[in-house]
């Protein structure tokens, strides 16, 4: 999934040029490790039997308006186009119901996949090529008209209209029947064979096994859209609500106001409550201003929250008031992808892992170690099903070891200062420049010759995906679309992706044995076995080839006013759990 816009635009530096630190292996004992270690067994991530209504907590008062302030702004709120973490969270948690949904489980402090408009998490045939979702009775739109299975089928068809509605997830084109041919209901007036409706049930046919369809069905792409009321250009200005809140007004890039949808029936919904009267989202706000407002906690600020990560300057002020700080993880791993075509010696690649100045690069870039950036080991982030914890270099993802790097370089036959590493940084971003300085220091101390190449915030993404670029290291990251290795390795580490447009396989990783293993997991294993096999694949790849330096997992640290209740970290998206929030008494 794409990170919210801030991460893409503002933190291009942080995200894509992340370089890190240096020098010593200093490990500050005071750094408070966050609760980032909950990778569970696959089963605990789903609860097909969850039933509504969700109990409203006893300390919740009825009424009031929650205000959400953020420095970023969703680029679109059209259900088909929503793919950023903020737009999907706002739509799925408050406005639109999908076939399935993620619901926060306070007992495990984790998100669970539960049914939403469907009665369960979908029924599938033996080889996962046909999925059927049956809709609950009594579902209504905000105008009181009933939700029909045809509307869900139409929404699925609509998600193929990439030309009219770009930027959404594209798993449907990869997995659904005729996904490569069908162009959506606006261009293709005919029927689409992939989706069929019978009574209250929607059946989706696949062209290859798709075991993760239940996860995918939680995206806003699988909501209900009445065809008669659709207009590709304007539907995103006011999508018809099926969830507890409906649009009152929406000024793109500025403000979104929601009010109670009286046609939402809590007894059908196991994941949402409707305690407050309305929501007021204020976009494109000044970070320093909104943080000060919330920290000072006066008047309406008590019912105000933000989903932006707290800045280093404000974190210190709020750290003493832990009750108003929500910390957690987001399923994102930041990596330094080592170009396998250029850095061919595994010893050199490992030396880079030892040389990378993790802590000083994070700190110089304004990340709070252990809070907004968590030292990473496995490529799969905590919270992913089947994740196997291992430590390929034995440095716990944060203890730089220049001596070991020098030793490995010597073993590979390079004198100090001989091996040149080239990487990009955004020269118009202070924090990216500061990070770059630390990385250069660290790499130089470990016997490398570091050559940072200047780029800009606006162009660094295209520069990074240029196969002819002189760089041999690329800084980027990946976030889960759903908590399974299946949304990680086939998307970034398949040899067949080398050379394709957009450079999805950033490390140019193409090894026959690893590709064979991926195919075995995809084609031969049952979904339950595959989940654990991905964890093993992760370990084998990093230990044998070390194609990427893990430069930390994304952390979440959001602040809120003292009367905001029920706010936790939705660790699937790294967003607040809007669906169950309220104003305290």
């Amino acid at each position, binding site marked *: 999934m794409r990170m919210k816009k801030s991460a893409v635009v503002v933190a291009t530096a942080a995200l894509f040029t992340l370089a890190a630190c240096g020098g010593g292996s200093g490990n500050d004992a005071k750094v408070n490790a966050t609760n980032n270690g909950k990778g569970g067994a696959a089963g605990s991530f789903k609860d097909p039997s969850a039933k509504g209504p969700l109990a409203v907590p006893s300390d919740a008062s009825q009424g009031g308006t929650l205000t959400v302030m953020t420095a970023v702004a969703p680029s679109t709120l059209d259900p088909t186009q929503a793919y950023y973490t903020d737009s999907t969270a706002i739509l799925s948690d408050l406005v639109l119901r999908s076939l399935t949904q993620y619901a926060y489980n306070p007992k495990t402090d984790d998100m669970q996949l539960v049914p939403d408009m469907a009665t369960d998490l979908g029924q599938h045939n033996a080889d996962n090529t046909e999925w059927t979702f049956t809709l609950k009775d009594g579902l209504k739109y905000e105008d009181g008209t009933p939700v029909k299975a045809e509307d869900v089928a139409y929404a699925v068809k609509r998600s193929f209209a990439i030309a009219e509605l770009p930027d959404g997830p594209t798993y449907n084109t990869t997995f659904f029947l005729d996904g490569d041919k069908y162009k959506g209901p606006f261009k293709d007036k005919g029927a689409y064979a992939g989706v069929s409706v019978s009574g209250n049930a929607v059946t989706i046919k696949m062209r290859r096994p798709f075991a993760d369809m239940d996860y995918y069905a939680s995206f806003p792409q699988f909501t209900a859209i009445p065809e008669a009321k659709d207009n590709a250009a304007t539907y995103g200005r006011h999508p018809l609500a099926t969830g507890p809140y409906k649009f009152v007004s929406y000024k793109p890039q500025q403000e979104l106001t929601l009010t109670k949808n009286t046609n939402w029936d809590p007894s059908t919904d196991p994941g949402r409550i409707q305690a407050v009267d309305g929501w007021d989202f204020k976009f494109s706000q000044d970070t320093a201003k909104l943080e000060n407002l919330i920290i000072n906690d006066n008047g309406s600020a008590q019912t105000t929250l933000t989903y932006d990560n707290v800045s280093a300057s404000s974190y210190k002020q709020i750290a003493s008031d832990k009750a108003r700080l929500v910390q957690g993880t987001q399923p994102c791993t930041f990596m330094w992808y080592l170009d396998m075509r250029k850095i061919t010696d595994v010893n050199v690649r490992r030396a880079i892992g030892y040389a990378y100045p993790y802590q*000083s690069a994070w*700190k110089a870039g304004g990340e709070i170690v252990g809070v907004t950036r968590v030292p990473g080991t496995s490529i799969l982030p905590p919270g992913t099903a089947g994740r196997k914890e291992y430590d390929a270099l034995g440095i716990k993802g944060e203890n730089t070891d220049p001596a070991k790097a020098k030793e490995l370089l010597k073993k590979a036959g390079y004198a100090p200062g001989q091996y040149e590493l080239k990487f990009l940084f955004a020269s118009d971003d202070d924090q990216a420049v500061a990070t770059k300085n630390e990385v250069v220091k660290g790499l130089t101390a470990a016997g490398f010759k570091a050559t940072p*190449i*200047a780029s800009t915030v606006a162009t660094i993404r295209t520069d990074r995906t240029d196969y002819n670029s002189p760089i041999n290291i690329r800084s980027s990251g990946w976030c889960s679309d759903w908590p399974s290795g299946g949304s990680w390795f086939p998307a970034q580490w398949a040899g067949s992706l080398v050379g394709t447009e957009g450079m999805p396989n950033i490390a140019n990783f193409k090894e026959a044995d690893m590709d064979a293993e991926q195919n075995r997991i995809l084609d031969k294993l049952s979904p339950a076995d595959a989940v654990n096999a991905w964890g093993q694949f992760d370990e084998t790849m990093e230990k044998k080839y070390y194609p990427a330096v893990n430069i930390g997992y994304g952390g979440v640290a959001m602040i809120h006013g003292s009367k905001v209740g029920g706010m936790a970290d939705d660790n699937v998206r790294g967003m607040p759990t809007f669906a169950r929030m309220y104003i305290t008494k």
Partner: protein
Amino acid sequence: MRLTRRHHAAHEPASTRKVTMGISPTELNSSDVHEDTQPELVKKKIAGRSPTQIALDRLKKDKIAMTCTVIVLLFIAIAIFAPLLTDLFGVKLRAGDPIHDTDQFNFPAFGPPDHGFTMKAPFGIAPNTGDDNLAEWFYGARTSLAVATIATVISTLIGIVMGLVAGFSKGVGDKVITFVLDVFLSLPFLIVALALAPIITSRFGDKPDQLEFWQFVALLSALSFFGWMTLARLVRGEVLSLREREFVQAARVIGVPTRRILFKELLPNLIAPIIVSISLGLPAYVTAEAGLAYLGIGVVGVPSWGQTINKAVPFFDTYPLYLYAPVLGILVLVVALNLLGDAVRDAFDPKTRR
């Protein structure tokens, strides 16, 4: 004093009296002759001072101007001796170690805001990176003044030449230059500067050693190419009125080359507006450099007050010193330069003479 004056009189007849007035040679000669007939004492009193001397005398008596001069000289000294000063204070530029110099909140592990004053870092260290603020400040003064001075010199030269040529050449030359001038006046400076920066970065991004030089050149070009128009207009207007004066006519009649007329006959009469333009341009460039650095345009990796302010703004509440040091630097320097500029203008302005 007298020697200088005679020198002036011999070569630059026009400058012997009010600069902006432009006295014709005949007038001048007669007055000189007249002066010669007067007693020695009176002659000294009346004729002993050129306009520049008068202005300097007035400046010397202006306490504000003198204070500002001292302040500006102090900043210039800081800029020139930045490396020595950092050694003197025992600080180093860009030598922070985030792991040991900052705590778990990325705040300084010693010095303000949480710990007492320490000579290890008199201005404290930067959060996140741990770089020393004082060293950054010294070198920031150097960047500010270097950029402002060079940009002022370049834009003044361009402005003078364009103004002189436009004002003196009749017809096509004037029209062409006026048109160019109008084009530059209508271009939005900030947008051009914003557009220039990524072009330079993408052109020289893979050559780190050249990048810094070309970014510097781009910054100076942006500032200078957008800073010459006002002066050029001013000079052109003056030249338009001066060139019809008798002393210019006379020079033409006796066959003085155009270049000589421009630089020896006209230019000396323009000293006042040029000095005023320089003195007001300098502070404007200091501010512009800081503003551009704040926007991320400028020389990457070179310390600059604007960049420090950009980094320090989020800490205005929690670590005010970090923000105040560069802000005060800019404030004091710009106010001093501005007041000095005003004083210079007043000193040169004939209307304020008693």
